[in-house]
């Protein structure tokens, strides 16, 4: 949902406001709150709301657990607030003046509130990495792209950076494709390779959570399959939250799925349950293709 032409100093991010489905939809079933998780958590989103600078409430009182080293998917129709929620987790909305958060995003196990007044958004971004919709490698070499996050952290020792770069590229399953051209431009890679490079860039500084914002929406099916395999592999070592427009993708890669609609989280649960036995009528409408 990021418009390339907008400027960072504009008061707001470009956003798509929720559009009512065009069929008569009188369903008023309240959202189903997530149940208690038995698995260890990496973060808890509690009673979270988000307001854009113009006063538009894009997220309404969302509760959602994020499981440690699992993949959590957020699905829902365009404009439901899924990207907005994701971008709240690493405080991207702080780049634009006037946006406001309410509620808590607690990072476990320390219990720090990421959106609290005492948290520095820049420090939050060191702990929570992000990969964007469109591959956005920097206009630099492949090596420097991956090293960028390490340099921000003040790491200067060449051997440490070399090691971390190789490690990240291996984890992103792109090492074999780029190991001979680390000093080549990142723009010489294909779209799918660029996106995996961006994943490596996000992984290199060892974030606690990695956010993926529709990472395959600009990729062809083969490149998409590679990224999906990668997401599943990575979930053994890092906590992942992925926003996707593609329900099959959520079903394939995630352990938990959250369904959002008009800024509210309608249902949250084990991916299999959400797709085979949804409890909320809107979830059922969505996954059976009645809107989206």
């Amino acid at each position: 949902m990021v418009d390339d032409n907008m400027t960072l100093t504009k008061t707001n991010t470009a956003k798509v406001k929720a559009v009512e489905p065009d069929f008569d939809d009188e369903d008023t079933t309240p959202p189903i709150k997530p149940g208690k998780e038995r698995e260890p958590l990496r973060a808890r989103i509690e009673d979270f709301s988000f307001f854009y600078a113009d006063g538009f409430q894009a997220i309404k009182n969302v509760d959602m657990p994020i499981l440690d080293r699992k993949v959590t998917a957020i699905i829902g129709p365009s404009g439901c607030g899924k990207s907005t929620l994701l971008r709240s987790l690493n405080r991207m909305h702080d780049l634009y003046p006037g946006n406001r958060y309410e509620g808590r995003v607690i990072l476990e196990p320390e219990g720090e509130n990421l959106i609290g007044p005492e948290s520095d958004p820049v420090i939050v971004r060191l702990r929570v990495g992000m990969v964007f919709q469109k591959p956005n490698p920097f206009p630099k070499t492949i090596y420097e792209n991956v090293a960028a996050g390490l340099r921000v952290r003040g790491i200067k020792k060449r051997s440490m950076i070399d090691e971390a770069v190789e490690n990240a590229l291996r984890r992103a399953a792109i090492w074999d494709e780029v190991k001979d051209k680390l000093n080549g431009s990142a723009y010489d890679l294909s779209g799918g390779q660029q996106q995996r490079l961006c994943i490596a860039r996000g992984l290199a500084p060892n974030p606690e959570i990695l956010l993926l914002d529709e990472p395959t929406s600009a990729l062809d099916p083969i490149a998409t399959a590679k990224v999906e395999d990668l997401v599943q592999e990575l979930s053994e070592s890092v906590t992942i939250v992925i926003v996707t427009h593609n329900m099959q993708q959520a079903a394939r890669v995630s352990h938990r799925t959250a369904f959002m609609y008009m800024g509210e989280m309608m249902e949250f649960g084990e991916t299999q349950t959400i797709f085979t036995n949804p409890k909320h009528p809107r979830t059922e409408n969505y996954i059976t293709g009645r809107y989206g």
Partner: protein
Amino acid sequence: MPDNLIMFIAVPFGLIMAIYLSEYARPAVRETVKPALEMLEAVPTVVYGFFALLVMTPFLQNFIPGLKGINLLVPGIILGIMILPYVVSVSEDAMRAVPNSLREGGYALGMAKWQVATRIVIPGAFSGITAAFILGMSRAVGETMVLAVAAGQNPNLTWDPREGAATITAYIVQMSLGDVAYGTTAYESIFAVGLLLFVITLAFNVIGFYLRRKFREAY
């Protein structure tokens, strides 16, 4: 010789101003400064000649002993100032053309604004910025009136900026003012000199054009 001075002023000032406007300034500031720069681009060059000879030179003579009324230092400074609005506005355009998704990628890694500016925006806009400076330089080289007024028309090969010397363009003006008769050596010589000037600026422009196009293709 004045060329070095021009770049000495235009490059650092132009770059810093462009970065400030594109990355730091509030929209209100940018929306005010950008049109102001466009207006300043429209100041006739003969007015800059006036500034050089009658404002800047007497002012600097207070500080620099031995600065002659007609010299190379002041036209250099004034030309640097003259091309500044153009250089700033073109390179700021180039910086703003760098997609915002790249900036967000930088911020997501925890970069500060200056890191985003120097590590992402400048490399991304590099060919556009270079083109801005080359085209600005080409303007300064082809500029006539400032030099004709303030650098003098004395064919003096000197490295001392406090003295005056003729430049290509000033030479043509001097010859023309003397009402060159058709077919004389003087008449032929201004054409030879003009051709040289044309070739020099054409080279600058072709490089600038090529860089700008390359930059446009990148995004």
